């Protein structure tokens, strides 16, 4: 059993080293073009909302605050059959010239709201922004550095958790910051496999040629990215474009969200399994997707073992205190003989150090000055004790192809 653990650690470390090497690689295919007089492409930004009365106002305000020529920007707000005050909330903006409001019946999944809007789009670019996210004023401007290349078909932003105010949100903040590092590494090797709801922008050409969004196991944002990859459409990552989003505050919705993500990832990769290990798709097909799947399943298998290794010494310590009482001998002279470390512990420590390093690199990308914060520990806690729950749940669901409900 221990050998499995070594194999898992080896593969995890391999993946980390792989990302680190990729991070510093040059991307010959996608290069940003910084110009003083960029060409502003016309764009429609779709904001689907379902019961988001509290955040939608801020989302719209941030879009109105974008540094972008007025005549080139259209904002489409789609009320996806909200049952709260979302519709009356967005009425405040009905007279703004750049904003169009729509209301439709809810059909149970976000992709329907997006597809409702797509035929109405007449601009060169189509953007998506979830109603619980908001953008920095210069986010869209920076995208033009990438869209200057006619072959770039989509661009995704730097996602940052806004105002973390709970244990889980802080943990997610650190997690997303590592995500920035990973995103840049994927970008460098053209292996971005998700175009997330918060502010992904596509050329309309993508939908004209590949068709609209699909249901895709409630992860339409992963499906469209894989579909684009399959057709060799280039996806870029604009690290200077920052978008803020809120993560689930409490355990239940967080687990639900993650189960949906991982289930969707597994199912979508299964649906696109014909690209796996195909040479033409390079690192995406050879390393990123296979290891992504492998890591989900191996965690599920090895979590009980890891727990056992953690709990066993604790159990011994408690049973010792139980039998002879707690009476430690305090002494300043340490006998170094009794200070030891095992291979697994040392490798695990290395892995943690690399994680912290990549987190710092991610923060560097968005200019976050506070590098060493308490949320790092929260993240490790979340990944040790909570993540296995959603990993196990989503793997079981994926294996049994059980349907997920959206939200």
């Amino acid at each position: 059993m221990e050998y499995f653990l070594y194999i898992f650690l080896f593969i995890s470390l391999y993946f980390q080293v792989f990302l680190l090497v990729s991070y510093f690689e040059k991307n010959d295919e996608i290069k940003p073009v910084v110009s003083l007089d960029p060409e502003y492409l016309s764009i429609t930004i779709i904001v689907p909302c379902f019961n988001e009365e509290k955040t939608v106002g801020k989302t719209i305000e941030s879009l109105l605050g974008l540094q972008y020529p007025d005549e080139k920007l259209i904002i489409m707000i789609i009320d996806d059959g909200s049952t709260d005050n979302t519709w009356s909330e967005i009425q405040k903006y009905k007279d703004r010239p750049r904003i169009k409001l729509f209301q439709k019946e809810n059909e149970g999944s976000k992709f329907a709201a997006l597809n409702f809007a797509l035929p109405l789009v007449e601009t060169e670019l189509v953007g998506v922004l979830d109603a619980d996210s908001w953008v920095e004023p210069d986010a869209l401007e920076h995208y033009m550095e990438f869209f200057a290349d006619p072959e770039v078909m989509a661009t995704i932003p730097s996602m940052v958790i806004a105002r973390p105010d709970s244990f889980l949100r802080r943990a997610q903040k650190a997690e997303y910051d590592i995500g920035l590092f990973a995103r840049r590494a994927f970008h460098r090797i053209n292996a971005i496999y998700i175009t997330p709801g918060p502010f992904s922008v596509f050329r309309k050409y993508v939908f004209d040629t590949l068709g609209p969004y699909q249901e895709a196991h409630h992860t339409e944002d992963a499906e469209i990215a894989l579909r684009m990859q399959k057709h060799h459409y280039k996806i870029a990552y604009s690290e200077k474009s920052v978008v803020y989003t809120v993560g689930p505050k409490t355990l239940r919705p967080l687990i639900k969200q993650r189960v949906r993500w991982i289930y969707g990832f597994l199912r979508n990769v299964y649906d696109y399994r014909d690209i796996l290990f195909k040479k033409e798709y390079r690192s995406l097909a050879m390393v990123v997707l296979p290891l992504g799947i492998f890591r989900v399943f191996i965690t599920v298998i090895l979590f009980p073992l890891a727990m056992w290794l953690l709990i066993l010494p604790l159990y011994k310590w408690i049973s010792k205190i139980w039998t002879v009482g707690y009476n430690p001998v305090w002494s300043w002279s340490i006998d170094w003989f009794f200070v030891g470390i095992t291979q697994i512990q040392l490798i695990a420590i290395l892995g943690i150090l690399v994680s912290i390093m990549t987190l710092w690199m991610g923060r560097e990308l968005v200019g976050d000055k506070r590098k060493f914060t308490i949320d790092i520990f929260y993240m490790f806690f979340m990944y040790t004790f909570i993540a296995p729950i959603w990993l196990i749940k989503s793997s079981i669901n994926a294996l049994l192809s059980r349907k997920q409900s959206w939200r």
Partner: protein
Amino acid sequence: MKNDYKKYTMVFLITLGIFILVFVLVSMVNDRKLESIDDLQRKITADLIATETQFDLLKTAPCGTLDDTLLSRELGELGEKLDFVQDSQGINSTEFQQLKKYYSLLQVKDYLLMEELSNKCDVEIDSILYFYSGDCINCQKQGYVLTELKKRYLDIRIYSFDTDLDFSVIGTFVSLYDFEEIYPTLIINEKVHQEFQTLKKLEKMFPNLIEEREEIKRIEQGTAFVLFLEKYKDVDDNDIEFIEAIDSVYEYQVVADGSAELVFLRYDQKEEVFVLEKE
């Protein structure tokens, strides 16, 4: 595309390199630990042979060496180190097995030597023979108890034998006392106990040890009492020396202002306090 494979191989080699480095590093540290155990074992062997030789030379027991509990302490340390290496570092190589067998052998030798010394010098030696095995449920707990006992009473000699070791000497020992293979098994004063013994039960089996510890505490209490006296308020710990105790009268020698004085204290059993007898 070719570059891709180059990269995968390079990343693989880096990862492999890190792994090899970790394994080499840890095994180096562990080798050092085994070496230091080996050194300790050599030292104990030399000491044991020295005592035995002394024995042979004098044809009688060198009773003075009995006070020297250093050997047993070193044996205890050796046992602790072997346990640590096995439990925490997960080492169980043939080299380690060899060290452990040798340790068992040393313990048996020490035990026999002590038996002989105690017979000839007419001194009682408190010892426990402890047999355990890896798959026994209560052995871990029994181990904790014995470690704690040893910590409290340095003079007690605990000999522990891992019956999982394929070692004839331990087998002989087992057949000598003729007990069933149920563990933990403790042999105290020739009596075989085949169940878990709590700390309290064990302490009761060695009443003189408890008495001794009480006595040491009482002597310390007496020293504190002397220090507390108005007359000796400028005197510190090092200037007071315990001489002897006859019945309940404790005699101390105090060095104050350059001259030595004797102080006699009486211990009141009922009130558990000292009173000044005479100066």
